């Protein structure tokens, strides 16, 4: 297939719109037009369609029409079949609009190669930029490949660079992957450490659990101890209180007892001691005795009363007899007188005796001599008077017998009665003395012989005894209460001692000095100590519990913790990618080596040909003034003149320089005939600086080029057009 540019349609470019340029033919074409006819515009438009419109930059003419987008199309035609392919471009962003086949026609030419090699202007011909590169590009490109080996090499280089890039986005970069792998490995190591920590935690948990059980056991024991101590403390306090109460109670009872004793003593002082302690039988006996005494005395008093009545009767009979006689005889006064004398002489001694005996007794009892003497005196007087009365009584009566007898009888009776009375009274008096003696003997002396009084005394004594019994009862009650209290007190002391002993043991165990006394306060101390211990234990237990809870949570989480595995997996993936990148890198390195060695080989084979060709062309153009073009090993061009003198291109004249580079380009374009087969060579008035001879030589060279490639020459010079037509009569002339 040999395709060529058939025509150009400028849809909108520069000052042109909807303008057709062409038709062109394969081989040599010349576009002739005056200034402003659109030659350069057409050339630029072709370049623009193929490789994109020039961006607006600075003051350069970018051919942007006023109020419109640039647009144009190229129509290529197949020389053999006549088939046409249109490629067009409107906006740069949309790219080249072309069918696949049409695109393939243009695929092997890049913009730079086109600008350097295909689009030639007078200015462009002064040099050949990057000669070795372009040379290599063309030389190797013209070699049956779709992309130039140089391009392939560039791609390989680019990929190699990407694989060693440090840019953050370069995911496959070996450098980045290694860094990432290193990071991941560090994290894997961290995770492994974390795993080890977890195992250590598991171990800790296994160790803590028995520790906790031990702590709980100790706590339980301590709680029991504290409970016991608290109870003991309460018991101790209660016992102490009980003891204090009981002590007080005992003291109270003691004071009550002494009160009772005092009362009793004072009472007892007011009581006859003889009667105070007699029993009921004695009392009854005494009372019986008193009753008997009263009866006996009453009987005696009655006898006295009867005797006195008898005496009074006889005495009255006697005195009545005497009184009747006295009236008659005058003797009566004498008898009366006698009788009076008798009575006086009888009564007085009796009275005296009656007074004297007790006085003597009392005097004896009270050891009073005077009273005893009075008694004796009275008794003596009574005896004397009784003797005198007896003398008087027995003096002979001088009155009649009968009377005498009568008198005598009356007097006898009277005397008899008197005697009887006296006897009765003496008996009574004796008896009274007997009573008094008895009473005195029985402790009833205070009754002074009075039986009534004695009975009153007995009653009083009975009452006092009852009272004393009451005292005794009270004393007994107090004593029994006290005994009970003391019993309780003993018991309390005993309990306390037991408790104290127990506490002393506990305290000794707790570390207190063994012989310090156990008191409620010391128990409280112990309790406080134990409580503090328990609190400490609780704290430790809380800590252990907290730690166990913490560990359980951690371990529970660790059971489903896959961070370690995740990281390892991630590291494995990065390792895989690193391996792949290393392989890719190695592959590219090998590819690069192969490619560079192939390029070198190819160049060494084709370069001499190109330079030989270029040398021929240059010699033709310069009419032998310059013979050869060479590429030095340093990649610099040198030219050789007919005197074999070597020059650097910079030392050539403008024209010769342009001829050198034109020759070189033509030689390269011919050598690389496969590159850009369909792309025309655009030459915009390139021969203006050439003299006539050299211009002809150049025209011939272009004709030679046109045999292998389509060449389109733009010119505004008629003579140029004529020259070209002379050189190549078959050329296709397009007029603008």
């Amino acid at each position, binding site marked *: 297939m040999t395709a060529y540019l058939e025509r150009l349609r400028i849809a909108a470019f520069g000052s042109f719109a909807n303008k057709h340029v062409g038709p062109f033919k394969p081989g040599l074409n010349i576009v002739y037009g005056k200034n402003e006819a659109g030659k350069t515009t057409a050339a630029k438009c072709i370049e623009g369609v193929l490789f994109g419109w020039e961006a607006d930059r600075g003051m350069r003419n970018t051919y942007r029409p006023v109020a419109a987008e640039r647009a144009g199309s190229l129509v290529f035609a197949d020389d053999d079949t006549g088939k046409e392919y249109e490629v067009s471009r409107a906006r740069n962003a949309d790219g080249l609009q072309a069918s696949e086949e049409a695109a393939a026609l243009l695929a092997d030419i890049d913009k730079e190669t086109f600008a350097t090699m295909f689009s030639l202007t007078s200015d462009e011909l002064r040099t050949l930029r990057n000669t070795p590169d372009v040379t290599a590009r063309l030389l190797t490109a013209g070699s049956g*490949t779709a*992309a130039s080996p140089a391009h392939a090499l560039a791609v390989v280089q680019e990929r190699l660079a990407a694989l060693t890039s440090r840019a953050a986005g370069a995911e496959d970069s070996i450098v980045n992957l290694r860094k990432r792998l290193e990071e991941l490995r560090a994290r894997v190591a961290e995770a492994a450490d974390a795993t080890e920590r977890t195992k250590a935690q598991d*171990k800790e948990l296994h160790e803590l659990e028995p520790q906790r059980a031990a702590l709980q056991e100790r706590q339980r024991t301590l709680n029991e101890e504290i409970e016991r101590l608290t109870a003991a403390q309460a018991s101790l306090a209660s016992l102490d209180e009980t003891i204090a109460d009981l002590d007080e109670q005992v003291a109270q009872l003691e004071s009550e007892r002494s009160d009772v004793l005092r009362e009793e003593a004072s009472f007892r002082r007011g009581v006859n001691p003889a009667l105070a302690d007699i029993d009921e039988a004695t009392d009854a006996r005494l009372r019986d005795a008193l009753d008997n005494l009263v009866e006996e005395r009453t009987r005696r008093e009655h006898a006295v009363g009867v005797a006195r009545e008898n005496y009074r009767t006889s005495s009255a009979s006697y005195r009545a007899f005497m009184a009747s006689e006295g009236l008659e005889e005058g003797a009566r006064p004498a008898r009366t007188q006698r009788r009076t004398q008798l009575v006086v002489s009888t009564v007085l001694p009796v009275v005296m005796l009656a007074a004297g005996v007790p006085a003597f007794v009392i005097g004896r009892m009270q050891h009073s001599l005077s009273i005893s003497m009075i008694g004796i005196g009275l008794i003596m007087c009574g005896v004397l008077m009784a003797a005198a009365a007896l003398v008087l009584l027995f003096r002979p009566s001088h009155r009649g017998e009968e009377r005498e007898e009568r008198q005598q009888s009356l007097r006898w009776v009277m005397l008899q009665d008197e005697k009887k009375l006296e006897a009765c009274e003496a008996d009574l008096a004796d008896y009274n003395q007997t009573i008094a003696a008895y009473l005195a003997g029985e402790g009833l002396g205070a009754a002074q012989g009075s039986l009534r009084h004695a009975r009153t005394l007995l009653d009083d004594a009975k009452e006092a005894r009852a009272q004393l019994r009451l005292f005794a009862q009270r004393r007994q009650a107090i004593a029994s209460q006290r005994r009970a209290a003391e019993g309780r007190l003993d018991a309390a002391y005993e309990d306390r001692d037991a408790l104290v002993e127990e506490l002393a043991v506990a305290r000794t165990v707790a570390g207190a000095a063994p012989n310090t006394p156990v008191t409620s306060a010391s128990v409280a101390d112990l309790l406080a100590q134990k409580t503090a211990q328990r609190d400490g234990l609780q704290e430790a237990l809380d800590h252990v519990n907290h730690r166990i809870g913490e560990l359980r949570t951690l371990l529970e989480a660790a059971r489903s913790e896959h961070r370690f595995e995740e990281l390892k997996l991630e590291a494995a993936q990065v390792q895989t990618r690193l391996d792949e990148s290393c*392989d890719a890198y190695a592959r590219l390195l090998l590819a690069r080596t192969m490619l560079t060695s192939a390029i070198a080989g190819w160049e060494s084979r084709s370069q001499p040909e190109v330079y030989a060709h270029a040398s021929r062309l240059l010699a033709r153009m310069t009419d032998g003034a310059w013979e050869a073009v060479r590429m030095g090993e340093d990649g610099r061009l040198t030219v050789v003149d007919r005197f074999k003198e070597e020059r650097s291109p910079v030392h050539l004249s403008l024209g010769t320089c342009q001829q050198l580079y034109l020759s070189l380009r033509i030689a390269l374009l011919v050598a690389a005939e496969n590159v850009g087969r369909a792309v025309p060579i655009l030459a915009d008035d390139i021969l203006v600086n050439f003299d006539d001879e050299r211009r002809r030589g150049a025209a011939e060279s272009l004709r030679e080029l046109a045999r292998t490639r389509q060449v389109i020459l733009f010119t505004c010079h008629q003579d140029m057009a004529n020259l070209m037509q002379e050189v190549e009569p078959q050329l296709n002339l397009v007029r603008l």
Partner: protein
Amino acid sequence: MGRKLSFIHAADLHLGAPFRGLRALSDAWADRLLKAIPEAFDRVVDAAIARAVDFVVIAGDIFDTSRGSYADYVHFADACRRLKDAGIAVYFCTGNHDPYTSWQNRMVDLPDSAHMFTADEPAFFLHERDGEPLCLLGGRGYYNQTWSHTENISEGISREAAERALGTTAPFAVGVLHTGLHLDRLKAPCDPKLLYARGMDYWACGHVHQPWQDDAENPRIAFSGVIQGRDIKETGPRGVWHVVLEEGMPNKATFIPTASVVWERLFVDVSDAESLTAVEETIVRAQFRANGDAHCEEMVTRVTLTGTTPLHSLLQRPGVLDDVREGLNRRYPVFFCDALVDATAAPVDEKALRREGLFPATFLQAAEAQRRNPALGRALLQDEFLKLGMTLPARTERAVEELSDEAEHLVLDLLLGTGDAS
């Protein structure tokens, strides 16, 4: 009828092992794979319980590293407890990955039904059924991560030694070893002939990751392989043996697949595919075919596209293969295509190129020259890698020839425009 013994022969659980060789897992699949090995182990336990076996033998490498994760240790202990609850004992030895030294400080107390063969000398256990001796077990594991070259790991383990040590005889005798046997001469190797002479009925071995039996009809020495493949190289079904020993009968071992995720390397020829959709279809068909063979639920595949196709240049474009891969992974969540490798070739006639004598011919000559001298290639690569501050990875070095071929294709693709030239 003779007495009968049945047990599970497992080995190489590699709990905690990462899956290697994967390059780009989705989160869901990463999660899936993290659980794959523990799940596979659960299946071993389930299988033991379901078959009501007498005991389970694990021939080493229970953990992938001596510093296994807490979760894995707990998981193993839990599994032993589950087996104990079902009345199944566990006999295990240590391997080069979890040597005896790493078990000394094991923090999870195993139940008393789990018995470890010590590593410093042969150890023996008697397994009883209903108070009657049923099986003598003798075994030995790794003491540390390497086994001495001068010592034979099976030394001192025989039926006679077991009878002497245990003071009793039993109808069956099983040996448990972590050994490379004659298959891996670097890891406690051991001549099978030596083992046959020890009077054991069955040798349950661990270390080799591929299931292996000396004789499928009457296996006397066997490797169960890993319970779950965890490397793109460990393809195919993985599991444990259910071994039945019966007096007067040949040994019988049935393979129980336990892997929940199976690895497959698929080479898919896409020569006939005319579009990317067709390529995708071809891959899916290949996946289903492989899945049908593997008896697994889930499958991780590495697909290499082969064949000569004009789609080559399209497949070479950046992002195209990724798109295809993502499309595949979206379609069937049970298949995970980890990597899609393009090994297709453009329809390039190398002979014609050589005949043309143009640049490609020169290039092919240069490539040929390089391939002829791989040592030079290695030296070059070593130099370049040193510039990156690293030594040439061994696997890359080994692959120089292969890489050279690939390099050639790469350049040809670039030159001929059959690859991605951007």
